[in-house]
């Protein structure tokens, strides 16, 4: 398979094309605009549909419409745009439609700046819009994964009829690394059990998020929660590096995990038994594997993130605070440094 130097945002569109995505709807925003640019260039050439919408809300509602037909649809943006799309994402969840949303996080809140951050964690992982819903959230940490996890997002989204979000940051979107192109492209089939595509087969199907009867709405909500529990049981995904004998787990996703990995190696050279626990799924959070670390004698956890402890909260919940959980973070467009993580590892090691 061909390997090429590619930008993270470009890799998203390569993944989408290989995943058989039929339609892309977007609106420009830094640092995610290259996804729109690549879609504009490549989608029409591959016979797929691409529209530059008049706003982020328009784009997510175009996704809503296209997804209704059972075809693979996606959009991409950054924090301020994801906030705008949250209304539509809630409706997609209510209608149990598959769709892929890519969030190239920048610093917030508000306008913030265009530097990298991971401050959209709560918005995306907890749902973001109104109602009792979840999104499947995948967290790439390399250009390769920007492609691979975009493909995976389409697969999981269709499998569970949920919105799947690829949650990356400004660094991952903008950086260039070798990308090994996917082995195979996918030709997805329309699921006629729920889609409405104008054929006789799908005529009885109704796509809706409205249940005026309270008990019906409650039953539907319970059904959603059962589905989310099934997703939690089936789809947890994590990469563990040097975790086998680790006393201290660094929990980090995305670009923060790449930085933490360097600190693990440096700490090991000093005799500190550190490991990297890198969630590849943020919902479902890989809590089984993290609990296994605690069960097997893991002593301390350090969360490394470019947000105000948003992931750290989930880590504490996952292990029910059965061991001390610390936070090393930066905000505002700044990256955590390997040195800061190493310092935290040394401090924590003294407490063991």
């Amino acid at each position: 398979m061909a390997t090429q130097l590619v930008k993270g945002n470009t890799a998203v569109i390569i993944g989408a094309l290989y995943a058989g995505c039929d339609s892309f709807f977007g609106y420009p925003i830094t640092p995610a605009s290259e996804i729109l640019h690549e879609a504009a260039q490549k989608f029409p050439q591959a016979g797929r549909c691409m529209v530059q919408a008049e706003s982020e809300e328009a784009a997510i509602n175009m996704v809503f419409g296209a997804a209704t037909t059972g075809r693979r649809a996606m959009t991409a943006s950054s924090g301020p745009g994801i906030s705008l799309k949250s209304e539509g994402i809630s409706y997609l969840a209510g209608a149990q439609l598959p769709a892929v949303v890519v969030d190239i996080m920048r610093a917030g809140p508000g306008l913030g700046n265009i530097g990298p951050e991971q401050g959209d964690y709560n918005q995306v992982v907890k749902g973001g819009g109104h109602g009792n819903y979840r999104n499947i959230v995948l967290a790439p940490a390399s250009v390769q994964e920007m492609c691979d996890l975009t493909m995976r997002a389409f697969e999981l989204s269709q499998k569970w009829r949920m919105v799947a979000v690829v949650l990356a940051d400004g660094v991952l979107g903008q950086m260039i690394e070798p990308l090994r192109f996917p082995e195979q492209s996918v030709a997805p089939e329309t699921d006629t059990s729920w889609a409405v595509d104008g054929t006789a087969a799908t005529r009885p199907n109704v796509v809706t998020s409205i249940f005026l009867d309270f008990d019906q709405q409650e039953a539907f909500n319970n059904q959603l929660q059962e589905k989310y529990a099934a997703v939690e049981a089936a789809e947890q995904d994590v990469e563990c590096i040097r975790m086998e004998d680790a006393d201290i787990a660094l929990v980090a996703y995305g670009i923060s995990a790449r930085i933490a990995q360097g600190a693990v190696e440096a700490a090991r050279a000093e005799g500190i038994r550190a490991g990297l626990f890198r969630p590849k799924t943020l919902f479902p959070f890989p809590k089984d594997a993290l609990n296994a670390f605690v069960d097997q004698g893991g002593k301390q956890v350090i969360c490394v993130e470019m947000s105000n402890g948003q992931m750290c909260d989930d880590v504490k919940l996952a292990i029910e605070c059965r061991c001390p959980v610390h936070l090393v973070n930066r905000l505002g467009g700044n990256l955590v440094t390997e040195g800061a993580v190493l310092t935290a590892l040394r401090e924590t090691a003294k407490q063991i």
Partner: protein
Amino acid sequence: MSVKPADYASSVPIAWCPGCGNFAILNSAKKALTELELPPERVVICTGIGQAPKLPHYMRVNTFNGLHGREVAAAIGIKLAANDLTVIVHAGEGGAYGEGGNHFLHAIRRNVDMTLVVHDNRYYALTKGQASPTTPLGTVTRIESDGVVIPPLNPLALAISQSCSFVGQGTTGRPDLLVPLLKAAIQHRGFSLVHILQSCPTWDRVHTPQFYRDHSDELQEDYDPYDREAALRQVLTPSERHPLGILYLDDRPVYDEQALEQIEHPLRQRTVNPDAALALLATFA
């Protein structure tokens, strides 16, 4: 003169590209406010996101920098709370007509006393050259590699058709006409739209200041801006030429004057009287 140009001077370094049409708009905006003898503390410039919205960063003036496309809605809130201040919105055509298109329509209807200045450079310049709501058909951009296929919005025809209280057009190719136009718009009571055809030296090599000088005409002295059909003819007749000046006027009732009539205003200076609310308790019975 009590207000001097220096009152509006700012030392913030300007981040626009050299040759950007925004410089002419910035200078005209400062000059208009100075000539109207409006001191900076009596003026609010409200913006969203884009190149145009950076304008008040480069002036010494009250600044509200809010959400992309929501600048008009924010400005309505500002005006209703502080109706003694002069409220001006500076937006790009992306914010004003794309993201904020819905707000634009209803601001025309509501007719709050404020001025919307739209810097129309026909591109999303901040996010690097995508097509905007006014990019001409066939223009090749980094998104539309085969050329734009949906026709541009005609904001002037839209505004006039909806009886927008003040509709004017200027261009950065004729900065001499911008100052009187902005002054008239600010002085007008009601919602004023000033559409400025702006050059973008980075993304658009066609619509240069010279292009706009060569392809525009000042409205004749006998032109009647109260004649809506004449105004619509000006902006609907297919033409290579752009009319400059006050295209349309409609002395409609001003929303904030009506809405605030029964209330002590400006709201920001009002003392809240808790007894007035308590007196209402009986009416809930």
